[in-house]
């Protein structure tokens, strides 16, 4: 093997390992709490997996987070105006109150419109005084009413949105450069990033596009390629330390699946609808088949949603659980060495899982694109004459 090839391979391997180690380190730094409170792995897992209103890096030993505050954009339905704030703190200063005080299901940072706090506080005080179950049921109902009245439409730029922007910018930069390279290197072999992307694009075109939508694949290639690379970039970005779990967010995957649903059904031809509403089976079978076919229109994107969401979130949860083990063991006994030795084992596992996650990131992006192509292919296939 030539030395340069060896060095290239070595540096790639080093990058992969550095990424995994840093991820471990980042998670550790986040959760290393010097006070000997019981370790709550569930809360930490959710904190890592869910979306946030700030981009948190780690917590200082005294508990103050080191984070970039992200802007809040809230639609105030009482005055019909969009309100912009630099951070959640700024919004609190002008009278927005925290939803989590009144609703345990609310997320940290969810806000209620100005004016909610005095009303809700008064109701809560009354609730604390009363013992009559009828009155307290009434008060609960009233609290829910006030809560939903002051629950705003929140368009805030969350951590996930920031990472979607990052992925979009990366995609734009990379692919505009690649596109430019095709005019510059016309007639020559691809170079650099172009050479990296070309086989992937060609693979998606041949194995996904042509294979499943043989009659009109050119039309859907932009959609399929955008989906593939967008999901792939977000999956891989999710593995980077301090980053966000975008493709493991169910609203993100649902939106992508809805795109598939709309494209499939809007582009569908007559044969597809005939297959759903008048399948070529004996008449009495139609009673069973037609409802099933109609339901299957919606189960397909539903399965897409759950598949991407569960795979990516599952991977993140496994990594965080393995890291949590260190702290669970570390706080169990007096011996510090327990946590230390478990730590070595956990880190090894995390590396293994991390490498698997890189594969899963690729596979899930591919699978989402493949299934989209299969569904579109079914919808636009020309009717076969037997």
């Amino acid at each position, binding site marked *: 093997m030539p030395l340069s090839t060896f060095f290239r391979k070595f540096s790639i391997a080093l990058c992969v390992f550095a990424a995994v180690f840093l991820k471990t380190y980042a998670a550790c730094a986040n959760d290393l709490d010097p006070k000997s409170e019981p370790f709550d792995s569930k809360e930490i897992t959710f904190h890592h997996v869910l979306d946030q209103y700030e981009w948190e890096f780690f917590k200082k030993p005294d508990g103050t987070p080191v984070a970039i505050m992200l802007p809040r954009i809230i639609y105030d339905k009482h005055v019909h105006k969009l309100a912009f704030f630099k951070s959640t703190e700024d919004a609190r200063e002008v009278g927005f109150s925290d939803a989590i005080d009144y609703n345990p299901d609310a997320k940290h940072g969810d806000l209620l419109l100005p004016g909610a706090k005095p009303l809700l506080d008064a109701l809560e005080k009354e609730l604390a005084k009363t013992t009559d179950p009828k009155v307290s049921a009434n008060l609960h109902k009233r609290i829910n009413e006030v809560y939903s009245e002051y629950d705003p439409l929140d368009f805030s730029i969350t951590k996930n949105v920031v990472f979607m922007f990052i992925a979009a910018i990366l995609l734009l930069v990379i692919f505009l450069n690649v596109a430019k390279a095709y005019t510059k290197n016309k007639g020559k072999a691809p170079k650099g990033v172009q050479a990296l992307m070309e086989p992937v694009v060609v693979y998606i075109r041949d194995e996904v596009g042509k294979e499943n939508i043989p009659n009109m694949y050119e039309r859907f290639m932009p959609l399929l390629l955008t989906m593939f690379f967008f999901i792939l970039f977000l999956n891989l970005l999710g593995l980077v330390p301090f980053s966000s779990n975008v493709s493991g967010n169910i609203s993100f995957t649902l939106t992508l699946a809805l795109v598939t649903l709309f494209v499939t059904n809007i582009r569908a031809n007559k044969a597809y609808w005939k297959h759903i509403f008048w399948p070529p089976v004996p008449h009495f079978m139609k009673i069973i088949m037609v409802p099933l076919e109609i339901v299957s229109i919606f189960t397909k994107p539903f*399965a897409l949603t*759950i*598949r991407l969401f*569960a795979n990516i979130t599952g991977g993140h949860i496994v990594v965080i659980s393995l890291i949590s083990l260190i702290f669970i063991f570390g706080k169990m006994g007096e011996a510090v060495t327990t946590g230390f030795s478990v730590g070595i084992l956990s880190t090894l596992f995390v590396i293994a899982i991390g490498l698997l996650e890189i594969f899963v990131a690729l596979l899930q992006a591919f*699978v989402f694109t493949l299934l989209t192509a*299969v569904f579109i292919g079914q919808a636009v296939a020309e009717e076969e004459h037997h």
Partner: protein
Amino acid sequence: MLLQVTSGVSQMYGIGAGLAAGLAALGAGVGIGLIGGNAATAIARQPEAENKIRATMLLTAVLVEGVALFGEVIGFLLSNK
């Protein structure tokens, strides 16, 4: 009535969650094993059709995996009750 029953056995949610996820994984494991094994046999018989077999295998495996993930999600939801 039902509320009382469920609140009385709230400790059982964990067991239910584990069973849901575990059994779904069991079924999907058998399924994906069969798919992979048969694909290997098929490729051994017809090496020239490898690409087509691989694509079919992947597609079927993904559909089976979807079922396992439903089980996992149900387990996850139960465990958070």
